[in-house]
């Protein structure tokens, strides 16, 4: 739902980088999106298509890299990796788990000309 805000944030960062590094065009943009970031990737892609128009990144290839979700199990105490927010602990089967990472949303890097 807020993917448009995120796309605006991405454009702002790209514009600032274009100023700082003096490149003409972004050819590939790589984003890291955590499993628990609450980002709908197709919606973000759609928003970027609109928001990046007229910027140095218009038409750039967009790669989204999934970062795993990590969580602390409150019953067995282990830090585990889970694919879905509601998955039980893979070690003990408990459902009481608290995310400890995987909410990242970052621009990792970009290839530019």
């Amino acid at each position, binding site marked *: 739902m807020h993917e448009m*805000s995120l796309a605006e*944030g991405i454009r702002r960062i790209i514009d600032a980088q274009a*100023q700082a590094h003096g490149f003409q065009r972004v050819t590939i943009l790589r984003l890291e999106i955590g499993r628990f970031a609450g980002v709908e990737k197709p919606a973000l892609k759609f928003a970027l298509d609109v928001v990046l128009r007229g910027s140095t990144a218009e038409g750039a290839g967009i790669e989204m890299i999934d970062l795993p979700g990590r969580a602390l199990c409150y019953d067995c105490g282990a830090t585990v990796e889970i694919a879905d*927010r509601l998955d039980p602990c893979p070690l003990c089967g408990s459902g009481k788990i608290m995310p400890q990472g995987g909410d990242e949303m970052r621009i*990792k890097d970009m290839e530019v000309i």
Partner: protein
Amino acid sequence: MCTVCGCSEGPKIDGTAHAHGHAHAHSHGDMTHSHAHDHPHDHAHSHGADHDHHHYGQGAAGVSVPGMSQMRLIQIETDILAKNNSYAASNRRVLAALDAFAVNLVSSPGSGKTTLLCRTIEALGDQPLAVIEGDQQTSNDADRIRATGARAVQVNTGKGCHLDGHMVGHAMDDLHLAPQSLLFIENVGNLVCPAAFDLGEDAKVAILSVTEGEDKPLKYPDMFTAARVAILNKIDLAPHCDADLDAYEGNLKRINPEITVLRVSARTGEGMGAWLDWLRAGLAAKSRP
């Protein structure tokens, strides 16, 4: 266009257009308070005659990409919400300097946030406090809050689905908070987006009313994971809608084992004491060195 919220019209604060031309008395940390305008930037620049060299790893952030001629890889590693987070950090510094305690009230529309807030303000008596009301449209909620005698600023987000750190910073400027105030930020009714946007608050408080369904914490886990307290509101209605309060609490604790659950009826006053105690304890903790 407001650069943070991305909504096309920009938020309105109390019916006035969210003007960006006025002087900004507040500091946004080390950021210049610039707003991206949508005019195209032309980045054509000339590199003199010796443009045969390749830009391998120029600058601190650049690294070379093997096999690519003038192509460069720029490592950024920047959080997409970095700008919002810097506004939030600035708000947090202002609040800390005042020993003020801010809560960000989040819920679906109709959970009873404004009624809970009105009852809370009445019960707190002469405690210094202020309210920031976020809604897409209307100043109805700020009007209700002002009827209690409290200071309130309405922020209309237009098409925006959440408050962000930038809007709250502006609203805080208008409120001129007294030292050791409580600041209540009533977010846009929405169980999804406000979870991602830090406003500089001390705690998010999620309000869930017993008419909404026991499985809401499982359906919208991000919000209940981000919240430190969940207020289970409208418990006076529980017998009339077959609500299982223990099931609500069980699902909240499953999603967030650390969450504090308070069972409240803002209408009858049941459970309000524990909520007021939690607020007072939070405020007292801010004043301690």
